[in-house]
């Protein structure tokens, strides 16, 4: 197989509140022989909030990030669902609207950049599934996760709006019956847990202003996984991870029941199956202890 190479847009959390996500991304890419060129020039994507204040500025900044991936001539790979949505949405809007693209490029020209629309944008989860292939992952599994019931938590911004998402990856995914993460769990040797909340919202984006709503959604998600005998949860989104891993006290209070499960990043799960050490995967950085390794 030709060596895969991507431009990595880390997003902000991987460098701050989820260092384990950065570590495990690099560890897994290393095991899979995937080369990642980090976009060190990239700014924050605005996390779906900047656009509420200043849509045009958000577009310009995201177009700038994509322009750097284009300069490398590489597909941009994201490791955060919200980065994925914001960046892919920017690409979608600029590619179908020449006038808007010209307005954005007028600004980018001030700093010697241009958005062309030549780079694809995909989440690392789909890069593994579409480009690397689950069969190839299976061949590399040295520690199958066969003793675990694993609950996938997809995260809204990877599966909705599905029309946009399905432009960005090759294997079609339904927002109502997503399969990618389930398939990856199975490829790693684990048993996938089916539960109602797996494609629902964790509440992250309203956490500050709507604390009860956000905590209730987090609580329901963990409770759903627990009630279906999950040993732990796995998610491709660091923002979902932050909610599910660090907010269990608020979540338990909101739904009137103690809930907590270890929550792994998608990369950490793959890393475990590929034989990475807990240190390489940053398992010590979790607030809800990963007690099964």
């Amino acid at each position, binding site marked *: 197989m030709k060596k895969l190479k991507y431009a990595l847009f880390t997003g902000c959390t991987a460098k701050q509140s989820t260092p384990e996500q950065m570590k495990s991304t690099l560890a897994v890419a290393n095991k899979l022989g995937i080369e990642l060129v980090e976009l060190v020039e990239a700014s924050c994507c605005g996390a779906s909030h900047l656009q509420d204040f200043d849509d045009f500025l958000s577009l310009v900044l995201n177009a700038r990030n994509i322009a750097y991936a284009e300069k490398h001539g590489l597909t941009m790979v994201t490791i955060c669902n919200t980065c994925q949505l914001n960046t892919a949405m920017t690409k979608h809007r600029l590619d179908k609207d020449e006038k808007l693209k010209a307005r954005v490029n007028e600004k980018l020209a001030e*700093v010697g950049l241009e958005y062309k629309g030549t780079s694809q944008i995909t989440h690392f989860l789909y890069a593994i599934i579409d480009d690397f292939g689950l069969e190839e992952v299976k061949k590399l599994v040295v520690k199958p996760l066969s003793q675990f019931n694993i609950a996938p938590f997809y995260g809204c911004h990877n599966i909705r709006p599905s029309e946009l998402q399905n432009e960005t990856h090759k294997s079609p995914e339904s927002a109502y019956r997503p399969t990618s993460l389930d398939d990856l769990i199975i490829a790693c040797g684990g048993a996938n847990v089916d539960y109602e909340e797996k494609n629902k919202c964790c509440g992250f984006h309203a956490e500050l202003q709507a604390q009860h709503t956000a905590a209730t959604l987090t609580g329901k998600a963990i409770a759903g996984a627990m009630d279906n005998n999950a040993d732990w949860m796995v998610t491709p989104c660091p923002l979902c991870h932050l909610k599910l891993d660090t907010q269990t006290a608020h979540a338990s209070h909101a739904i009137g029941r103690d809930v907590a499960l270890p929550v792994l990043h998608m990369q950490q799960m793959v890393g475990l199956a590929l034989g990475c050490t807990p240190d390489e995967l940053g398992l010590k950085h979790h607030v809800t202890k990963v007690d099964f390794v």
Partner: protein
Amino acid sequence: MSTHAITTQKVNFKVFRFNADEDYLPYYDSYEMEVTSEEVVLDILNRIKWDHDGSFSYRRSCRHGICGACAIKVNGRSTLACKERMHDMVELFGKDLTLEPLSIKRAIKDMIIDKADFWEKHAAVKPYLISDVEEHPEHEHLVTPEEAEELLEADLCIQCGACHYACPVVEINSDFFGPAAFAKAYRFEADVRDEAHISRLEDLHAEQQGVWDCVKCYECAEVCPKDVNPIEKITKLHQMLFKEGVATSNVATRHAVGFKHSIARNGVLDEGGLVLYSEGPAIVKHLPVAFKMFTKGKIVPPWGITKSQNLDEIKKLVKSSSTAKF
């Protein structure tokens, strides 16, 4: 519309049954039916009533996706029954389908729900044109095609409730207006003839009920049978609140604006700084969680942040491309 020949297949239906006047708890009836590829979900509801149980109740009227009466949930997915083809439902969910009302806790009889909360929210956003029209105007009020374009999509809403009862916030926060009401509010806010403008926006800005409590899950955009894309309208309302000067300083507005400041300073986000900027003194409530995160190496102090390279470009762009003020 596919051109394949009409095919039939066996589908197992589990159908929600409940009569609020008689039943203490709901129950489910099961039917195995031969379903043709040309049928829509409403055809199945009709067949259950006409062929199996005349007491089965549901709302229907136009059968053409315009009256908005027949929305139900199929395997948990809000669905306009007269529009959704069985073929697609089977392809999506397989041959075991569960038919339920849009909201089980609001069920009156079988698929029929009490939609009072939906209509209350709808009415609360003043879903009509407010304009001081002269009794004998001297000329017509011209609206350009571009101006009409702005509200066209939102105007397609048929008030079916599919998005309202798919919205996770509506389920938890009974004050929340919900995506349908927001899309409707946008339809009039975007109308150049409307004069309510600020007073309607003030209601949409209010905590608990207003747009700031949206969790951005995109469920509303996903389920809408008319492609109204409510979340996009919610985003536009957010922008309008700033543009019209209605947005007051609160945790949500500071959070949105804080991104700009953080990006201008570091390129990347200063996560702790953003929460501090958004919350102000109220940040103390986050300290217990923050402390736990700190002990796990999850908090980077402002001086430890790796700033974006070529930061001067970002600073320049933030200056030259900003279009909003707060």
